[in-house]
């Protein structure tokens, strides 16, 4: 791995997870406030996360297996907020109904 490749890879990996977290954060706020604009913003953030994943696959010298893992993780990151949200609603449902 070249010197620049090292820093590029590390920063892209950090941004990759940070954007996944931002997507989850904004997605949850959007659902709580029922705000379509925030929901769209969450999709934009996920789009940026996806672009970061593409950049990792295209530009970094990581081995192919790790690149595959990055792509698979992106799919998991997409699903986690809605799944967690549904589970939260289901577990809190009896309380909400009072």
């Amino acid at each position, binding site marked *: *791995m*070249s*010197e620049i490749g*090292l*820093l590029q*890879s*590390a*920063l892209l*990996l*950090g941004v*990759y*997870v*940070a954007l*996944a*977290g931002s997507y*989850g*954060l904004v*997605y*949850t*706020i959007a659902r*709580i*406030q029922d705000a379509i604009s925030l929901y769209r913003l969450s999709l934009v953030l996920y789009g940026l996360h996806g672009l970061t994943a593409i950049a990792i696959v295209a530009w970094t*010298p*990581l*081995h192919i*297996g*790790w690149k595959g*893992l*990055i792509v698979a*993780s992106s799919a*998991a*990151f997409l699903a*986690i*907020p809605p799944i*967690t*949200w549904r*589970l*939260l609603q289901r*577990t*809190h449902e*009896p*309380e909400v109904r009072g």
Partner: protein
Amino acid sequence: MYRSQKLALKYLTAAITLFGIMTVAGLMSAYYYINPDFLFGILHFNIAKILHIDTMIIWLLMGFMGAIYWFLPEEFGRELVGIKLAEILFYVFFGAVVVVAVVFIVVQYGNSDETALWFINQGRKYVEAPRWAAIGVVVVMAVFAYNVIGTAYVTGKVSGITAVLMVDLVPLLVLYLDAFPAISNMSADLFWWWWLVHLWVEATWEVLIGCIMAWSLMQLLGTSRRIVETWLYIEVALVLGTGILGLGHHYFWIGAPSYWLTIGGLFSAFEPLPLLGMVVHAVYDAGTHHMKTTNRPAFYWLMAEAFGNFLGGGVWGFMMTLPQVNLYAHGTQWTVSHGHFAFWGAYACGVLSVIYLVIQKLRSLTQVDGALWKWSFAALNLGLVGMVGALLVSGFAQAFIERAIGGSTHDAFIAGQSSPWFVEGMVTRFIFGLMFAAGYVALVWDLLTIGKRAPVLATAGAAE
């Protein structure tokens, strides 16, 4: 108030005191990087560093124990079994910590023999305490386990949270036994040492804090037991599922078989996934309660826990966990940056949240709020973020100049250490360390006086 809860107050007071010592020792360690002549011939860097990291372990452990001694009697509806023994052992524990610290400062080091291992320093990072003190820790933890399991046995009441806690106490105790062997083969020694360090921190401690946060949520937001227990099971399963074999990321470069590169990298890459779920959960809880609570500092520290865990463990960890990057990053200030952020987010914020909950009950406050906790919250968190940012820059410089360009030679090490990026990172870290220390002072002052000064903090008695 139960005797266990009085004991909890002692543990939490000791935890906050040791938090202060950790901060001072951390500032000293940071200053050595700016002025290597500091206390030359009097107190070496390694001693300040030992004090910094060992007090960090002990204050968090005492914080966990304090939290559990606080919540458990209410959980069981009675005093804990063996409480007298636990009370005695608190003084033994705290006294032993003081004696060990004095030995570290005054004696500092010994010969490479059994006497030094028993009475001065075991020489293994995080568990430097000499053997006699390490045996003391085992006894304290055994009595702690007896308090919990014995009370559950006598009352016949085992809730989901206490069941998880009891199961967790077994590896918590057993893994600590790894503090004792003195193995001369360094690879073998590190292999087992990581069982203690990693599996305490990324497995058993995660479960402990999960149980503590479950009780905190019930008290702070009135969340039902059914909900917190369901999520405790899910989150503990996910964290353990990724965290246990995530141990492999410590085996990359210690001479362990090469399959650990795949196992460690794979499971470490999974580690941010449950942390994202925790962020969603925290935001859900905050949103459904419209950020309203009777204890704002406890609530904000609870939120800081979820976000700090994600950023420190997830983002910072993922930057350096894949083997190809870790080859250059391990053992640099980059790792230190990750360690600071992850410990703060995953554990320290949670303990501080519990302390505010305890104070609310102790002083019968209907509302806990004010200005000072906000100052301490801001200074501690900004100070911490500033420190980890600066350490990250210095770590990047080391990985780039010393490792990637220089190939880890001695000259490359010197070039990395004298690079302006590294040096300025160290200075910036120290400045933000001072901000963190100011936050600690504000925190202590707030804890001592909250509920006694501001008129908005009406007591339950006054409200009636």
